């Protein structure tokens, strides 16, 4: 390979992507396997004889969820842990860290860098991607794998397929992405939304035949889920959620909205969409209003809301402008797909708001930020010398601050996950230990590995960091 290409923009883009991915992997890998929403699934997988049995069991182990591939992934990782001599932590946490690497590198590959201006825009977009409040939800928890991360990865892969040169293999891959996603999480429907939106905007990588195949899969899924399995979806009074500056628990939801739930659903949808654009409300709750009322607006609100508002304005500026050929940019596949996924993710939040549900929209927000930053650098507005680039540099720095906060939050998640294990297999509560010897052996090993992991307690983290990166 000639030296020139090794020192060129493409190589630089991959190198920067790799740096971001390694940093992410390092922090993710050190979070122990969590107990809540994870241990039960692992215990189920331990004594399941085969992957196919896991799949079949996964079809019917809930009245509202159809997630057999969650069971299959868990079974495969338990088997991998066995093959590694009982190192389940290596299997599960290694998988999570690797999945993060794949998402970041897929992002780099999807934007397609060719100049130094592209590299600068990519660096900005990677900071937006990893600094988004919706991104941390894909890495701070795993149940025992993070299915929101799976959906975001397949959504990004589908977008890359839509922008490819096409061919029958691309169609097959797009249908496979949809099938895998639908059987992982209900948000898998977003994969079809990505393919349809990209096609609508002129990206022809996935052919009409491929789109037809995806539509058939989606219809079959709906029939199977509702018609055959009779599963219902989440509704009013099943999860606590934010409501203006406070929150409403399930019983309060039923008391206030059972007669007419429409305002409640509308609130959840609208606020979930706004959350991606402004970093508030968080999970439906305007925590900034609460902090304002209590007289304690910490820097985290200014950094998060300021960087998001300016980046959203940048994307709006891009979408409302024209490209070099005079074509309106809102027709750009990146913009159309981002707006579609934003809307679709918001609609999926109708019953309750949660940062993780809108995580795929956060990924496409970063893609749109790339396109907008690139255009801003190539043809900045006619402001006084350097002002436009200085403003973008300031926004980029704010996102870098948020990016560092992701690692801070993951230290806290590691502490929480490790602490959860103190409640398991207590010597004074032997009657609550798993009766099955194999399950007991696996849980004992999981606990031993989680406890052996050295994590930083919050008391050792810098005090000032809480006001810049803490929970809000």
């Amino acid at each position: 390979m000639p030296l020139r290409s090794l020192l060129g923009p493409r190589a630089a883009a991959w190198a920067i992507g790799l740096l971001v991915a390694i940093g992410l992997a390092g922090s993710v890998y050190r979070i122990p396997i969590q107990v809540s929403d994870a241990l039960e699934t692992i215990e189920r997988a331990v004594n399941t004889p085969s992957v196919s049995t896991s799949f079949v069991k996964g079809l019917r182990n809930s009245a509202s969820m159809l997630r057999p591939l969650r069971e299959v992934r868990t079974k495969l990782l338990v088997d991998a842990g066995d093959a590694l001599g009982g190192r389940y932590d290596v299997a599960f946490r290694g998988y999570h860290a690797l999945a993060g690497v794949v998402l970041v590198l897929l992002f780099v590959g999807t934007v397609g860098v060719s100049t130094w201006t592209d590299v600068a825009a990519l660096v900005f977009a990677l900071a937006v991607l990893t600094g988004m409040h919706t991104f941390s939800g894909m890495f701070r928890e795993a149940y025992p794998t993070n299915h929101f991360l799976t959906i975001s990865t397949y959504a990004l892969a589908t977008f890359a397929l839509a922008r490819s040169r096409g061919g029958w293999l691309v169609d097959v891959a797009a249908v496979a992405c949809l099938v895998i996603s639908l059987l992982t999480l209900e948000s898998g429907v977003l994969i079809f939304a990505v393919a349809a939106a990209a096609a609508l905007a002129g990206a022809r990588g996935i052919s009409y035949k491929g789109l037809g195949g995806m539509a058939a899969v989606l219809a079959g899924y709906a029939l199977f889920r509702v018609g055959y399995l009779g599963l219902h979806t989440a509704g009013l009074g099943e999860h606590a959620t934010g409501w203006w500056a406070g929150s409403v628990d399930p019983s309060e939801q039923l008391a206030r909205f059972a007669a007419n739930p429409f305002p409640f659903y509308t609130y959840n949808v609208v606020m979930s969409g706004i959350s991606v654009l402004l970093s508030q409300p968080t999970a439906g709750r305007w925590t900034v209003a609460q902090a304002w009322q209590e007289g304690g607006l910490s820097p985290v609100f200014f950094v998060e809301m300021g960087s998001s508002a300016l980046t959203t304005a940048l994307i709006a500026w891009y979408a409302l402008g024209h490209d070099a050929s005079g074509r309106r940019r809102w027709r750009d596949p990146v913009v159309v797909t981002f707006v579609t996924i934003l809307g679709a993710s918001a609609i999926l939040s109708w019953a309750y708001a949660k940062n993780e549900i809108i995580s795929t929209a956060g990924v496409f927000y970063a893609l749109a930020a790339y396109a907008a930053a690139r255009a801003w650098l190539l043809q900045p507005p006619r402001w006084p010398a350097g002002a436009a680039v200085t403003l973008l540099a300031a926004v980029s720095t704010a996102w870098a601050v948020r990016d560092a906060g992701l690692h801070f939050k993951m230290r806290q998640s590691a502490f929480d996950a490790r602490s959860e294990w103190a409640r398991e297999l207590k010597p004074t509560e032997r009657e609550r230990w798993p009766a099955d010897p194999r399950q007991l052996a696996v849980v004992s090993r999981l606990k031993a590995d989680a406890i052996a992991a050295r994590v930083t307690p919050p008391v050792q983290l810098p005090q000032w960091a809480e006001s810049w990166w803490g929970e809000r």
Partner: protein
Amino acid sequence: MKGLLAVAAAPCAVALVFAASGVVALTGDAPLVWPARPATLSEAMASRDQGEVLRQVAAGVSLDMRYDVYGVIRPGEHTPSTPLEAAIATREDYMFQLAVAYGAHLGPDNAQVLFCLADAAKATGIRDALKEKFGAQSCEGVRLPW
């Protein structure tokens, strides 16, 4: 080119720092950024660090000895404590129960000091549990550890 560097500088710096930290974390025992510092068993207890408490107990550290606690119970001060005393400083019942569950000695010989410490520290849940088990204790003339 200067403009491009200005846009990329801060995110690249953050990426570099955490990549270096990540490599060390993946290949070694702790990340470069915000690594866990060594703590005594009582410091871990006073910090509500249940995982660290269990790690040290599993490694054979005694739950009945007195260890130094620096800056956790009182900012900038050394307050040597047993793990049970440190648990009282957190005012959290679950921390106290954790120490007992994993073998910390709790008997008539140390109940009075612990009761009085819990009373002074306003750890009402722990104080009431001790009262239920050992009866009300007189705190007159009892010397508290901190």
